[in-house]
């Protein structure tokens, strides 16, 4: 039983996260102050959705380069609809989610029914979505974000836990349930694990691809909307640099780029690790000219800790078998 637990994909990243919290907390007690925890949770909430959005696509063994463009488009639509059309925020949010869903659907349909690699398709739609964003905003932010939305972006629920954690937690649970308990989600992973076998088993691969891309679009849009609440304005540049994070977090969390294997918990830990590293750079007053070096070094540290654990597990397994 205990062994099973150790073998989970999320376990390694989880240990790394704990280790990081303990080390940083010991060196800088202010790291564990309620306000800082709140800041950390805010960062994690939004970034986790970005990572989930990519994770769903990694699950089917593809890549979605347009997550950031979809998120940005949803963000400025959300802010724009409220500012220009004066829509109430829930309606604007739903419509923006719809835009994200539609964008994802478009990606999915193009990938599924043309057979062209998702890499090329989403690269092209990235350009399309970003262009629409710039065309609408002409690079000017939307400023008139209603107070409620600003409040939601910053207010806390209980203790240091911000409200933005709610959409994140709900999405995480929903995704976990989908991918590991529902046949639909298992089909998504099956397609990623071995597309040909999944097809031969009667799974409708195109429909699964469309579904995964739609979910990805929806999650990216949600992240964009949450960022509007957090930044308190509709910046057209939202999403411009999501791409690397969106891959890094799931991969640190144990996902395999060829598909079929992702971990919701691991991805959350991956996001947390990246957030903690970001904080470390600020908390320890790293020379700005060395920030990138330390960042890279810490990423290497995080993944190699996990890797060493894996290797040790394998050794133990090998030793046990003989």
């Amino acid at each position, binding site marked *: 039983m205990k062994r099973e637990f150790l073998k989970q994909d999320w376990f390694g990243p989880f240990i790394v996260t704990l280790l990081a919290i303990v080390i940083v907390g010991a060196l800088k007690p202010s790291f564990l102050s309620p306000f800082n925890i709140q800041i950390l949770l805010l960062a994690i909430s939004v970034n986790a959705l970005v990572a989930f959005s990519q994770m769903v696509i990694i699950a089917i063994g593809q890549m979605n380069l347009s997550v950031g463009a979809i998120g940005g488009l949803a963000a400025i639509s959300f802010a724009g609809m409220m500012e220009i059309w004066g829509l109430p925020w829930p309606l604007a949010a739903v419509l923006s989610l719809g835009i994200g869903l539609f964008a994802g659907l478009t990606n999915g349909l193009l990938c599924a029914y043309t057979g*062209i690699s998702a890499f090329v398709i989403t690269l092209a739609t990235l350009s399309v*979505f970003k262009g629409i964003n710039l065309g609408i905003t002409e690079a000017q932010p939307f400023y008139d974000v209603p107070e409620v939305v600003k409040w939601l972006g910053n207010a806390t629920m209980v203790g240091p836990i911000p409200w933005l954690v709610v959409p994140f937690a709900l999405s995480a649970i929903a995704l976990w349930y989908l991918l590991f308990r529902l046949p639909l989600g298992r089909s998504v992973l099956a397609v990623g694990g071995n597309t040909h076998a999944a097809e031969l088993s009667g799974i409708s691969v195109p429909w699964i691809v469309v579904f995964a891309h739609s979910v990805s679009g929806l999650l990216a849009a949600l992240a964009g909307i949450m960022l509007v609440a957090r930044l308190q304005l509709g910046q057209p540049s939202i999403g411009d640099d999501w791409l690397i994070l969106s891959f890094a977090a799931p991969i640190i969390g144990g996902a395999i780029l060829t598909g079929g294997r992702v971990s919701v918990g691991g991805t959350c830990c991956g996001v947390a690790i990246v957030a903690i590293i970001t904080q470390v750079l600020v908390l320890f007053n790293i020379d700005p000219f060395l920030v990138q070096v330390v*960042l890279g070094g810490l*990423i290497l540290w995080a*993944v190699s800790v996990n890797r060493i654990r894996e290797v040790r597990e394998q050794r133990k397994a090998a030793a046990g078998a003989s």
Partner: protein
Amino acid sequence: MSQIENENKTGSSAIPKQGRRFDPIQRFLLSNEFGLIVLIVVFAIIFSTVSPMFLSKFSLYALGRTSAVNIMIGFSMMIVIVTGGLNLAVGAIGVCAAMAGGWLMQAVGLHWLPALMGGLAIGGLLGAVNGVLIVRSGLHSFVITLATMSIMFGVMIFLTQAESYREISPAFTAFGRMKLWGVIPPMLLVTIGIGILLWVLFVYSSLGRQILAAGASPAAAELSGIHVDRMIVWCHGLSGVLAGVAGFMLVSRTGAAIPSMAGQLGQDWLLPAFLAPVLGGTLLTGGRVSVLGTLLGGFLVTMLTSGLLLMQVGAFWMQTYLGLLLLLAVLLDLARRSYLSRNKLV
């Protein structure tokens, strides 16, 4: 029994009956490369009809020069994609190599040739470091190069304090502005030359074949007596050298080695880096490569951008049109292929 005897008499030859055979020309007509050529011609005709300036000497020269760099960046990524990995640090390595070259010319005062060699060596070394880390750790190249991209770029910024090197040998700078016969940038010739070398590598050399085998199926390659790990280190090293070449092209063009030439962390290079090989038909999962395809893919994308710029489509909407054109291009190619195979034309 008599039935069996009858069966016995028909078709006992060892060679199976064959349907249509592919001859090389038909194979080429179905290929990605041919598709790209068709697209390049089609779009060139469209652009030059809408905006005759497209075919002006200056415009063609500018196009050739920009695409030379983009294609070279594409080669640098291609060589790693072949192994089934990727190299996020192309930009960072390219800038590091170029900055090292700049430093050698300005601070050390070397002639441009040894400085160039030194810079390329740094590029190759950094690439090989990536390769060794990947092989030793057993981690995916994505994570390793993500981290080293940050480290390499960071060290470069720290060492140079983000200062540019401007004292580049005039001979070297002149190269970037030279025009052969009024339209041809010599850089494009360099790119084509390196393309030919790469083509020879993959088609005619033992090393290239081994690389392809290692990329397509590491397990099978290893069991066939190929040092898969060594191939991965080789490819990353070569990728670093090629990134360095792209970096030096930019140096020669801008007349300075500047830390921002590939953007923050060198990320600006990632798009052309992936786009050219992927459009050109290099498999992202490794083991299959098309040097000509990468060349044409890089050229097509550069041409689409410059064509759109010339057509003066609405300022802020340009990206949208670029995306749509790209989609149109790949869909056209798809249509061409399915038309050919549906009508059994090839």
